[in-house]
């Protein structure tokens, strides 16, 4: 099981989406993104923006980083705190 988190504006496009997916061999953040394509073209478009970062277990990683079972995968638009 992989936990999925969508922050900021990405959360608006992910409403109704399952908050977890099954772990499979060779899973990467890019594959997770592409797997969401079916019902959510707008979300996939948003996730494909170059400014979007991803974190795995709260560490920033690349889109092709391997995902192991039990991980927490978060999609992070540009931050706007302060």
């Amino acid at each position, binding site marked *: 099981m992989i936990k999925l988190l969508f*922050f900021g504006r990405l959360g608006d496009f992910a409403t109704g989406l399952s908050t977890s997916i099954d772990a499979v061999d060779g899973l990467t953040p890019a594959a997770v993104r592409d797997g969401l394509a079916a019902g959510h073209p707008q979300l996939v478009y948003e996730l494909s923006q170059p400014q979007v970062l991803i974190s795995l277990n709260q560490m920033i990683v690349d889109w092709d980083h391997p995902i192991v079972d039990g991980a927490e995968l*978060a999609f992070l*638009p540009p931050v*706007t*705190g302060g």
Partner: protein
Amino acid sequence: MISTIRIQTQDFDLAAEYQLLRQLKASVGAVVTFSGLVRDLEQQQSINSLTLQHYAGMTESLLQGIVDQAEMRWDLIGITVIHRVGKLLPSDQIVFVGVASQHRSDAFEAAQFVMDYLKTKATFWKKVDQNGQQYWVESKSSDQAARDRWSTDD
């Protein structure tokens, strides 16, 4: 160096935070504080409220990383970083950074460094409510530029 990092919904008391920093050591000669407040306008339109979301756990580690970098770069006695989350109204306090040091340039530069990195690295997101219409605030290129002043290899 003593560092304090807090993310909280409740307001903070600048005076209390200042007194703590000031009293850390007898060698404190300079205390710089920065407070960020909710401005009345966003894109020239008045706002009703601001809602701050963050990534609990990750935000704290990122802020600690920023504070650790500041400690390596300057001669500091204490740093306090407080960031509020949840719903805020115009004029509310959003963020506090306080730095105590022996000499003023260290405190000034470290406080500005922490703010520049916080703005571009820490996992906070702002949503604005203008007359019932809600939208997420866009990040500013001026904040990226402010951060990039501090390094060439970042």
